[in-house]
């Protein structure tokens, strides 16, 4: 008896389409990413600065004189999140640069788009992957750090005038994660190779930062600040947490405008690249 005689039953039930049609895409992609040990190692490593900051708070509460060297006011959270930007980029490169590129290479894009899914569902499903990963190393440790501050040094943090810290952490984490995630996904959609997309993302962020440094430090060109994704994010952080950052030489509004335009450009790239049919004329 041929193997196909073993059985196949018709399935007549037709449940209404679920609202969150993108969720299985996110869940499966996260499962695949988190099944890699090296990636889990990187994710765990991203929490080292958090541990260092908790120790810093602990030390200052035990030895108040250390507070002169290691101030633990609201700026600590801004500096912490600025540090985490580097980790979000690494996580995006190693965990999300192949999200669309691999689908284009293996034809899986058709497996998605021939289903009852819109292109928007697909993009949202994929976008949530780097978003979760980057929020895991910005928002989660940021809020945990704030909670640690409240627990270890209530006399310092349990004040109404410092109640802005939690909303600022949320806002800055979301800004960092959204920009990095959109950039990762857009670059991923421009290539059929995860490696090329990863290198492209790294090159874009580091390359633009280098150009900014040369123009800003060497030629005193203030608007060069707007070239760098990282510095624009730092400008937002500086505004939210009241940081004095020497690299931030323009108003945060300009940085916000550049990041908004960058995000819109990423969405436009995704709109043109995520298609079931590649039209070559």
């Amino acid at each position: 008896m041929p193997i196909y005689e073993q059985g196949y039953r018709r399935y007549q039930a037709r449940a209404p389409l679920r609202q969150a049609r993108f969720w299985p895409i996110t869940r499966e992609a996260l499962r695949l990413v988190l099944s890699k040990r090296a990636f889990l190692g990187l994710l765990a490593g991203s929490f080292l600065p958090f541990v260092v900051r908790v120790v810093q708070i602990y030390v200052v509460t035990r030895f108040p004189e250390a507070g002169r060297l290691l101030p633990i006011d609201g700026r600590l959270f801004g500096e912490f999140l600025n540090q985490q930007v580097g980790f979000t980029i690494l996580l995006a490169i190693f965990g999300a640069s192949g999200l669309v590129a691999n689908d284009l290479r293996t034809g899986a894009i058709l497996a998605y788009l021939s289903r009852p899914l819109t292109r928007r569902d697909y993009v949202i499903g994929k976008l949530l992957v780097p978003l979760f990963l980057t929020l895991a190393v910005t928002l989660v440790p940021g809020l945990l750090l704030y909670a640690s501050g409240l627990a270890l040094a209530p006399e310092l943090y349990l004040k109404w005038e410092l109640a802005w810290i939690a909303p600022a952490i949320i806002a800055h984490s979301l800004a960092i994660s959204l920009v990095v995630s959109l950039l990762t996904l857009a670059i991923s959609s421009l290539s059929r190779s995860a490696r090329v997309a990863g290198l492209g993302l790294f090159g874009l962020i580091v390359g633009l930062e280098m150009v900014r440094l040369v123009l800003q430090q060497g030629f005193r060109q203030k608007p060069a600040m707007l070239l760098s994704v990282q510095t624009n994010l730092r400008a937002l952080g500086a505004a939210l947490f009241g940081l004095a950052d020497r690299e931030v030489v323009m108003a945060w509004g300009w940085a916000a405008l550049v990041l908004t335009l960058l995000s819109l450009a990423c969405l436009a790239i995704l709109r043109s690249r995520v298609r079931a049919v590649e039209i070559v004329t």
Partner: protein
Amino acid sequence: MADSEAPLVEFDGLAVSYGLVQALGGVTGAFFPGPTGLLGPNGAGKTTLLKTLLGFLQPDRGGMTAFGKDPTREPLEVRRRLGYMPEQDCHIPGMTAAAFVAFAGELSGLPRDEAISRAHEVLYYVGLGEARYRNVETYSTGMKQRVKLAQALVHDPELLLLDEPTNGLDPQGREEMLALIRDVATRRGMSLILCSHLLHDVERVCDQVIVLNQGQIARQGEVRELTGARHQVFDVRFKGDATAVLTDLKDMGADWREGDDGVRLFLPEGQGPETVFRVAQQCGVQVRHLRPGAETLEDVFLRALGHEIQD
């Protein structure tokens, strides 16, 4: 074609283009329940027709309905009732076949538990039961084709779209795949559109056929009707130069083309072997072999494309 049955898919004056290149030029037709072949050479517009049905492409003019719905307006409702097996590779790196097919089921709207259960069932059905926990990337071409079929079947679609399902398969794998597809259509009662340039595949599986060429429908109808005794077909071998015989036969309304062993003659109604013998005698050419034959789908295909005469 069962005329009493309502068509699953209808298209009327459907024109689709990629920029300046017109892929479908105002075609009108229908796909009825049952297995239907979509034949045509590369660039004929077969895949374009399927992709329009899936709602991937917007028609320039004309319209298409599937299950009474317009794929461009209600693509999700149409797609949930379709199963699509694409021509090219289609898998998710790092996923086992079981996970991939279950995932495909879930994307089609099945609840997770049901998707997992059906994934195993369908993988057994296509003959991958023992290999279902292997990463799809490690599969042979034949196994990948079966996984593609499984992911198209998992949610039990009403209409299965198969784009060149035997591509890259060895003869045995091809026969097995065709047997599977035939089984899906006959014993499981699922309608399907088999898009292929391999005439044998369509002949093996389908009851109806649409022949596309250069964005136009060249022929359509039941395979049996198209390959039946519309013409009197004879495989003939002549001794010597048969050019004069063939020219005279052509003048009498016959067609011919080179066959595997001699010449395949298509005689019009009312003429038979005696005509061949008579003309050959008049031309002084000896008939060494004459055997009646049936017009195959290949003949229909070539005739539809305008290649019936000895170019």
